[in-house]
């Protein structure tokens, strides 16, 4: 229902522009939870804001398409969000595509009650509704996210961090959106609260059938909750795969190393190494694969040529894509060659396009 093709986002113009997202492809199916993981500065948030055209200055979209199918009944009705008129865009946001930001503390207006903030949204997008209808809907929304409707009259400072984040989710769901983009929605919260919010989101997804694009650096959380995971490194998607397959059998050295950065809660304690070095400077990306300087399997080719996002060498039909030369060169180390685990993924990974889509051109 949402197809991001070849999205490129720069910060700044001309020679000094920083390429924050480069040639990103991502497909979100109806009802899917798609996890986008990566370290800070890997471009995961920029990708989401670029796709909804919410980038702040000096962010510029320099290429790609973001195709959106608003209705399942009309597969021929496609909107390219990057080409949409301001009016289409205004109606599309929130009603079709809603966002939940990381710091709920800063996203709520401290001088307005929860009710005022919820009904404002409804009034803006449903001008023909009555005051009473809006109040009822606001109460209904709070109940949906597990907050007692008594809290409608509360102000943000009277709520805990977890409750504020729930209010944000309630606001995002106010207009029955089809896609909810969540940018690190639980990072500032305690683990128990995080777990409750994640459970709530999954429950609501099952109940209301929206799709979720969940952005986080916490890969272990994603594996548990997401259907599909895309891993970003230095502005590019390096691997995309059904969640459990990624966990059992990572195909990209970065995915494997990232998985090895989360200590387990079970079994023997083993020495883990993390990833040597530090994330690259986005102003000065190395030639070839950006991960090559930190990669223990790097080949000479890796520092010269950029690997394309393609099907892996092992079981190429396994609904997954990986950008790594080790696959083409057939020099896969054992660590990246685990057999595919059993079980069909719920959603197919997107297959690479037979041709490169034409860039819509120009900067917006």
């Amino acid at each position, binding site marked *: 229902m949402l197809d991001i093709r070849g999205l490129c986002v720069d910060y700044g113009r001309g020679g000094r522009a920083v390429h924050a997202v480069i040639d990103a492809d991502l497909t979100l199916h109806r009802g899917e939870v798609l996890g986008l993981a990566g*370290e*800070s500065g890997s471009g995961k948030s920029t990708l989401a804001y670029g796709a909804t055209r919410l980038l702040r200055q000096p962010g510029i979209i320099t290429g790609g398409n973001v195709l959106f199918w608003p209705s399942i009944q009309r597969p021929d009705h496609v909107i390219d969000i990057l080409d949409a008129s301001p009016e289409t865009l205004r109606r599309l946001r929130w009603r079709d595509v809603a966002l939940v930001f990381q710091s709920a503390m800063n996203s709520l207006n401290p001088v307005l009650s929860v009710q005022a903030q919820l009904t404002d949204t409804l009034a803006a997008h449903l001008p023909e509704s009555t005051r009473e209808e809006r109040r009822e809907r606001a109460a209904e929304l709070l109940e949906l996210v597990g907050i007692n409707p008594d809290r409608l009259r509360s102000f943000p400072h009277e709520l*805990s961090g*977890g409750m504020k984040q729930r209010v944000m989710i309630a606001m995002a769901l106010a207009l029955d959106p089809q896609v909810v983009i969540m940018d690190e929605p639980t990072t500032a919260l*305690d*683990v*128990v*609260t*995080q*777990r*409750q919010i*994640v*459970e709530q989101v*999954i429950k609501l997804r099952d109940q209301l059938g929206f799709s979720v694009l969940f952005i986080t*650096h*916490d*890969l*272990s*959380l994603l*594996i*548990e*909750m997401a259907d599909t995971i895309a891993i970003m490194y230095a502005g590019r998607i390096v691997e995309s795969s059904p969640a459990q397959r990624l*966990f059992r059998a990572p195909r990209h050295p970065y995915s494997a*190393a*990232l*998985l090895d*950065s*989360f*200590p*387990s*809660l*079970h079994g023997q*304690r083993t*020495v*883990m*190494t*993390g*990833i*040597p070095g*530090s*994330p690259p400077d986005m102003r000065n990306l190395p030639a070839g694969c950006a991960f090559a300087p930190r990669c223990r399997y790097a080949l000479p080719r890796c520092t010269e040529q950029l690997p394309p996002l393609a099907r892996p060498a092992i079981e190429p039909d396994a609904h997954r894509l990986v950008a790594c030369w080790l696959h083409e060169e057939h020099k896969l180390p054992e660590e990246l060659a685990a057999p595919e685990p059993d079980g069909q993924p719920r959603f197919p990974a997107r297959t690479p396009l037979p041709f490169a889509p034409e860039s819509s051109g120009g900067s917006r």
Partner: protein
Amino acid sequence: MTDTPDGTPVVSASGRRRGEVVLEARGLTKLFRVRSRPQRGQRRVRAVVHACEDVDLTLEAGRVTAVVGESGCGKTTAARMLAQLIKPTRGTITLDGKPVSGRKLRTYRRKVQIVFQDPFASLNPVHSVRYHLSRPLRIYHRARGKAEVNAAVEELLSRVSLSPPRQFADKWPHELSGGQRQRVAIARALAAGPAVLLADEPVSMLDVSIRLGVLNLLGELRDIDGLAILYVTHDIASARYFADTMTVMYAGRVVESGPSLEVTDNPAHPYTQLLLEAAPDPERPGPQAIEARGSAPSLIAPPSGCRFHPRCPYAMPICSEQLPPDISVGEGHVAACWLRHPDYKDAVDTPTAGNLPA
């Protein structure tokens, strides 16, 4: 991580035996007085925040002790009292067997050093790395004269794996990544030649991929230099990975403590169980619903009895009446829970979660 294979204690670089108690806290309590805002027509009320109550902690040479808990559980308050940044309301701290008074802070700080959470705030942006490291060297008379100080600075930098050290010494904080800054902060703590390192969430501000590198560095300082390390964290998985013993806190009190593998693999207190269930775990077969609802209580008027009882799925009448005693549930493994008391053992398998308000 442990003693040598044949079990003989290792003498560390600091001249202490592994496992020797260096810093000990007994009954550490901190009550913060606050003034609550008067409601209309009411008098201004004095209130007391029970941030940390009756916390016992033992730091041993060559061992890492983790304090685990959610925000507001008092773990940082406990660490700050140990660091003598704030004065305990009650309780005693002993360093090498001698009680510590508020005086002679410099002697104390020579032995007990701190690594803070945010390496972006804990280094002064107008000073070079060399300055940051040479100050403690001079203050604690660890090195004299320019040549000696410079040599010591380079030695410190290579101990925290910042190489080449000469190059790093002349960098400024803004030229370093988060992980590198935290290594400088660790090197600065080492400059005093301490026996104890208090690390308050030392990796939570760092990128996921470099956290383990910093934890492994602290692990080396434990193994090679025999430092006693306090590791304050909210991440129970990293505490399991890195710490030898673990203390779990909830709402200002210790609820469980013991060897870290023992605590995470056989959690005895319902709160520890909740914490483990809530932690992200890719190996979990499917998303599971956690039983305990609600959120941490107010520390101004903490619940009577066990502070976890309003959220506990196994709560019994006694839990709201009396504070649970520390009960041994294994070797060195202690839980403060009535369920483990011999008089109430049968109640363990009868959760009453359904009767509790959400």
